[in-house]
């Protein structure tokens, strides 16, 4: 039943698929964190036009299916602009931009829960607004946001399944390719599911350890992943 697992070609497909899934998730979550932080800061401290632009961005990336975003980015946008861009680059960017749409919300929530009194205390000792963000607000916000970040990681990992439908060999893509050669539908998808499960569980555990280690007494979030 599971003999396809011993086929070297299938093995390499699965491995490649896993690698792409892992790479694109990691990139997406990190880019999303950086961009999401900037968006959150812009939304909190920025002027009205900036706030509107950020809200529009967030609604677009949060309100439409990732698959549609991916499809447009890979096929439509290069066609309209009449340029040739590596599909992989576009796919990576879409995951980062999409994740930023969600992570902006997490960061904004975290910043807002701590900014009031902590900002005042920070200004009172002579720190500038930027120093306040860097040394007082963000170090606390990142610790609070770790559990949401773990959730984002899980959901983004599973979203990579859409990559198979725009021609990438991710885990689901690997599963599909194996199916074309071997009609064992159930076992193939079970194996693929187990790989997702193992990777997500393992990584979440690592994040939990980081959260516990980084946790500062007094800065805790009732919400746990």
């Amino acid at each position, binding site marked *: 039943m599971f003999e396809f697992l011993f086929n070297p070609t299938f093995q390499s497909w699965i491995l490649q698929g896993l690698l792409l899934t892992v790479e694109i998730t990691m990139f997406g979550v990190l880019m999303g964190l950086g961009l999401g932080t900037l968006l959150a800061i812009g939304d909190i401290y920025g002027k009205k036009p900036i706030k509107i632009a950020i809200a529009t961005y967030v609604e677009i990336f949060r309100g439409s299916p990732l698959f549609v975003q991916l499809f447009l980015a890979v096929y439509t946008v290069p066609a309209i602009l009449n340029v040739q861009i590596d599909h992989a680059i576009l796919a990576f960017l879409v995951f980062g931009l999409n994740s930023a749409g969600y992570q902006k919300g997490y960061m904004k929530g975290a910043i807002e829960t*701590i900014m009031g*009194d*902590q900002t*005042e*205390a*920070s*200004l*009172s*000792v*002579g*720190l*500038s607004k930027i*120093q306040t963000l860097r*040394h*007082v607000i963000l*170090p*606390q916000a990142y*610790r609070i946001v770790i559990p949401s970040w773990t959730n984002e990681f899980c959901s983004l990992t599973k979203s990579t399944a859409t990559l198979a439908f725009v021609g990438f060999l991710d885990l689901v893509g690997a599963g599909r390719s194996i199916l074309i050669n071997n009609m064992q539908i159930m076992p193939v998808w079970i194996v693929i599911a187990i790989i997702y499960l193992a990777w997500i569980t393992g990584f979440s555990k690592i994040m939990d350890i980081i959260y516990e280690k980084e946790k*500062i*007494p*007094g*800065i805790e979030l009732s919400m746990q992943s």
Partner: protein
Amino acid sequence: MTDLVMEAKHVYKKFGKESTKVKKIGTQTCVATEQIVEAVKDVSIQIRKGDIKLIFGPSGSGKSTFLRCMAMLEIPDKGEIYLRDECLTRPGVDLNKARAKIGFVFQHIYLFRHLTALGNVELALRQVLKLPKEEAYKRALAALADVKVTDCVNKYPSQMSGGQAQRVGIARAIARDPEIILLDEPTSALDPELTGEVIDTLRDLAKQGTTMVIVSHEMPFAREVAEEMIFYDEGTVVETGPPPLFFNAPNTDRAKKFMTRIINRTTRE
């Protein structure tokens, strides 16, 4: 005089906007008016080197707002704040630099929650005064020793008692060697048995000649250390004078009433 450390001239600060909204609900007409709260109405005060001034008065009268205006944590609508020769209310003044020279102690302490006691004191020394690591560490330790919390050096705010946390707050304010320290009800958020240790710390500071403006209702302490007491009510200074004046016979009725109430309360405890 040259030893004038800080001066507030005709400071005015209001909150809210006056607005009237008329709403028709069925046949009834509702008029909602939002009132302006004038927290500080034309207050002037001069503080010389080594002065200890105590501001007291009913809660909600705007004492804290005035103190926060002095620290430029709240920008006055009108009036001027001077720190030495520098006018802080003029546009274009580097407020961060100015605030670095003013120590502020909060009623609700507001320690940086992600930093230890040492980290709380060190942060401004490193980032504002740009001291080298070694020196910042030494000065932070010295400030923590001054307020007698050396046993909390590596503790986080949530692991300290209220009294310890407030003393760390004071250490954070004094470590930069500010020109003046403003304290906003430093003991009123603490349990009665913890206020003593904070008062002791303030007494030590007073002995060292620290220039301080304290909003507080700790009357025995006021009597002991304050040169001048300022009775503040409804956004203005009602009466000022040395402690004996207030404890014996204040001139104004309002001050008299307030003193009677507060002294009765203290003696009952």
